[in-house]
């Protein structure tokens, strides 16, 4: 690679020990990672990004609908308090209130910052940033670029990072976090990684690490997530002694493609419903009116006439039930399919063709139009789409401090999907992109400050024995029989999680899942790979598999322990929310003495001035005790 670029690929001639020293290492180059790196760099810290894929390919690129920010450009009534309230209610009040508050307050600034860095948002008539409707948001508040907002965001941040000459190590996967004396729970000393291209190892020494590795969807068979979503950050943090939290909450997006089989799970943006699309069953019935939970009843239209009027008249009409939070809509679709009212390929119909002119659909939803046309031979301006729930997002993640994004071990920070708290038990659409920017920035700033406060002599040193262990562990699959194939174990894991830890859960199935995961752990421990270390996907998967298994175990354990239904966790055997016990606690997971352990921690209580927002609201979260399904 030429010296004029700071974007590095694997060295052609690998040296025995490639070592780099930085103040801050950011793992992951999606929205949160890039924003964290920009902030750390601008704070004066020597910063590098280490990412698994080529720069600009991270999963953020798949985000479609937009970025929720109470800018009030379309509805001047909107403000951060309304956004905060929507977020908390969407998360069924299990959110870390401080994170939800910071997010609602700071998201508008982050949008303007993107605009100053070159993002080309859609505009209002008077030339300001246009905002669109989405599920669970009281006002139209998503800043967007058609239905490819994530691409716009990642490219804007990528350009900013490249022009700031931040070092990027791409196609480089972190194997383990290095800690002082190699002991879990101690201060972070760096990260050990391998180059995917060459298979050679590289050591990063840094006192501060920001994890921004995204989600866990690849543990599930039907998912909207890309291959990178193997829970790396979750697993690295847990292994280093940090806490995970809220792992039982997994979001199944209501609308994924269901046909053809090869595209099953690919996301269909909520923007389709925000722009007028409706859900129908095989009898042609607009069924969502039958699934309005008590807690949202006073905010939701109960006639078709009112629902249709809402798009133009938000003052007197209430929102259509298609725009309930994602957990509600996904459960409703699931019930309709189970009741035998599904579409030919086992989904439900999403219809915008009969509701909006073709020209409008093509302008508002260009990539949906393109996606269905090219992958399913369906013209969405002429016929309904077939859709069904798909594993989309994990609300759970690394337990962090709201203001600094600091994890529970010194020197470790986390932001974006791999961090917990912001979304509670269910994330609202449009709140992810804002989360990435708000907490990416905070994590980068806090990591830089932490690192800069440590003089060179006081920095934790990497432990040679730990490094040797990591290398031996990583290379072990080459010594084993390739007949024990990592792809086979991965396929089994995806089936187990899909069938037993999916959208509707029971005690018996969760217990079976934990048993199956134990067997899969044994199988994963003996997988072998063929070939050599240079760009070997089988080897990469053998490594990723351990992370997926560890995270899956966390999800199943926490799901088994939560005896209620709330947000992205639905128990058939405990169908109601339990405000007395489980509504007041978060599940925390940590490894102690080599054992994965689960603890209940009391939910942080919000101050009175914020709690009042819920009393004054038309439908208080206080009546949450009524079952949400």
């Amino acid at each position: 690679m030429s010296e004029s670029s700071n974007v590095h690929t694997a060295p052609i001639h690998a040296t025995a020990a490639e070592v780099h020293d930085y103040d801050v290492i950011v793992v992951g180059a999606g929205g949160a990672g890039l924003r964290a790196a920009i902030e750390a760099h601008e704070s004066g810290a020597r910063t590098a990004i280490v990412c698994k894929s080529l720069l600009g390919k991270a999963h953020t690129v798949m985000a479609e609908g937009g970025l929720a920010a109470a800018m009030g450009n379309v509805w001047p009534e909107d403000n951060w308090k309304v956004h905060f309230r929507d977020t908390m209610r969407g998360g069924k009040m299990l959110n870390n209130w401080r994170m939800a508050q910071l997010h609602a307050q700071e998201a508008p600034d982050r949008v303007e910052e993107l605009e100053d860095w070159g993002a080309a948002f859609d505009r209002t008539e008077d030339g300001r940033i246009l905002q669109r409707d989405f599920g669970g948001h009281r006002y139209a508040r998503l800043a967007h670029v058609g239905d490819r907002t994530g691409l716009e965001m990642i490219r804007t941040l990528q350009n900013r990072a490249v022009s700031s000459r931040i070092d990027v190590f791409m196609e480089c996967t972190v194997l383990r976090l290095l800690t002082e004396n190699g002991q879990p729970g101690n201060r972070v000393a760096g990260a050990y990684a391998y180059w995917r291209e060459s298979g050679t190892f590289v050591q990063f020494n840094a006192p501060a690490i920001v994890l921004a590795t995204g989600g866990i969807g690849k543990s599930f068979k039907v998912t909207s997530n890309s291959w990178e979503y193997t829970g790396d950050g979750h697993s690295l943090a847990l292994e280093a002694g940090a806490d995970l939290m809220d792992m039982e909450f997994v979001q199944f997006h209501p609308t994924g493609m269901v046909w053809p089989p090869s595209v099953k799970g690919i996301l269909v943006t909520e923007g389709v419903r925000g722009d007028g699309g409706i859900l129908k069953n095989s009898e042609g019935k607009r069924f969502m009116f039958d699934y309005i939970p008590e807690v949202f009843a006073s905010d939701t239209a109960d006639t078709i006439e009112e629902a249709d009027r809402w798009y133009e008249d938000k003052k007197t009409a209430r929102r259509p039930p298609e725009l309930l939070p994602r957990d509600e809509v996904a459960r409703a679709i699931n019930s309709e399919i189970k009741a035998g009212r599904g579409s030919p390929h086992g989904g439900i119909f999403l219809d915008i063709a009969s509701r909006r002119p073709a020209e409008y659909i093509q302008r508002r939803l260009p990539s949906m139009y393109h996606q269905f046309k090219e992958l399913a031979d369906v013209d969405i301006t002429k016929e309904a789409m077939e859709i069904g729930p798909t594993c989309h997002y994990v609300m759970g993640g690394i337990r962090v401090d709201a203001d600094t994004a600091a994890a529970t071990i010194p020197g470790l920070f986390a932001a974006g999907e791999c961090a917990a708290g912001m979304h509670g038990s269910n994330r609202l659409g449009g709140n992810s992109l804002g989360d990435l920017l708000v907490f990416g920035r905070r994590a980068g700033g806090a990591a830089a400050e932490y690192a800069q406060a440590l003089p060179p002599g006081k920095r934790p040193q990497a432990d040679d024995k730990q490094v040797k262990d990591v290398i031996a562990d990583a290379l072990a699959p080459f010594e084993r029989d390739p007949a024990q194939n990592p792809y086979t174990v991965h396929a089994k894991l995806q089936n187990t999680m899909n069938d037993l830890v999916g959208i509707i859960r029971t005690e018996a199935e969760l217990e079976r899942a934990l048993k199956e995961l134990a067997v899969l752990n044994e199988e994963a421990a003996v997988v072998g790979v063929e070939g050599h270390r240079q760009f070997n996907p089988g080897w990469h998967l053998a490594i990723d598999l351990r992370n997926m298994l560890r995270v899956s175990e966390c999800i199943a354990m926490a799901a088994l322990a939560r005896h209620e239904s709330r947000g992205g966790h639905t128990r058939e055997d405990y169908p109601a929310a339990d405000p007395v016990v489980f509504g007041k606690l978060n599940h925390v997971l940590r490894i102690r003495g080599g054992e994965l352990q689960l603890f209940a921690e009391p939910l942080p209580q919000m101050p009175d001035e914020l709690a009042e927002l819920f009393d004054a609201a038309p439908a208080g979260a206080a009546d949450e005790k009524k079952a949400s399904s």
Partner: protein
Amino acid sequence: MGYDLSMRVWRGDAGGGDLRDYSVPVEEGEVVLDAIHRIQQTQSGDLAVRWNCKAGKCGSCSMEINGKPRLACMTRLSTFEPTETITVTPLRTFPVIRDLVTDVSFNYEMASRVPAFAPRPREKDGTHRVQQIDIDRVQEFHKCIECFLCQTVCHVIRDHDENKQEFAGPRMFVKYAELEMHPLDTNDRRDLLREKAGLGMCNITKCCTEVCPEHIKITDNAIIPLKERVVDNSYDPLVWLGRKIRRRSKSD
């Protein structure tokens, strides 16, 4: 509906390689990337291929399919006869790393040379006022998913490595265009385009436009207008005179 597909896949590395024959079962509605994944899962676990989203949004799985640069995730098997052998090879313009994976760092190097976006100040009320019609053309360019298919098909560099030093390629012209035409941007990149990015080497054969999976009209909407702007800037007699009077640019 399923059948056994015959595939020829290039296997090898920088030192050389060859086409290997595979027979792989495929199902209705599948794409080329599905067939490659099935080969990985059941026959050659170490077959190297880049991919991320498998939905045509990230631009990772670019390769040459029967000699045409395409995204493997968006190339449906139904576009071929079941009896047809599908041949997949790595992008020709970039050095091979292994199998279907190439070293695309040339593109990142060229991107790092493009001067950044520099907006005009905000209005007094703190907003930027831009009409949708003015942002439309920038949005067309922002659809680019950086699959680099336009780069690999471009004959200026496809078989002419020597041109890579001074030719940025269609992807980068789209990048220059989106900045040059951004209603808020204040930078001027025209001299750079002429002198360092090799805009003049493009002779508008439109191959790049044809392969673009996002249907960006690269030649008509990016390259030709840039050429016009550069020409206006460099050769318009009034501009020339004005520059002589005010200041000398490096190109004079």
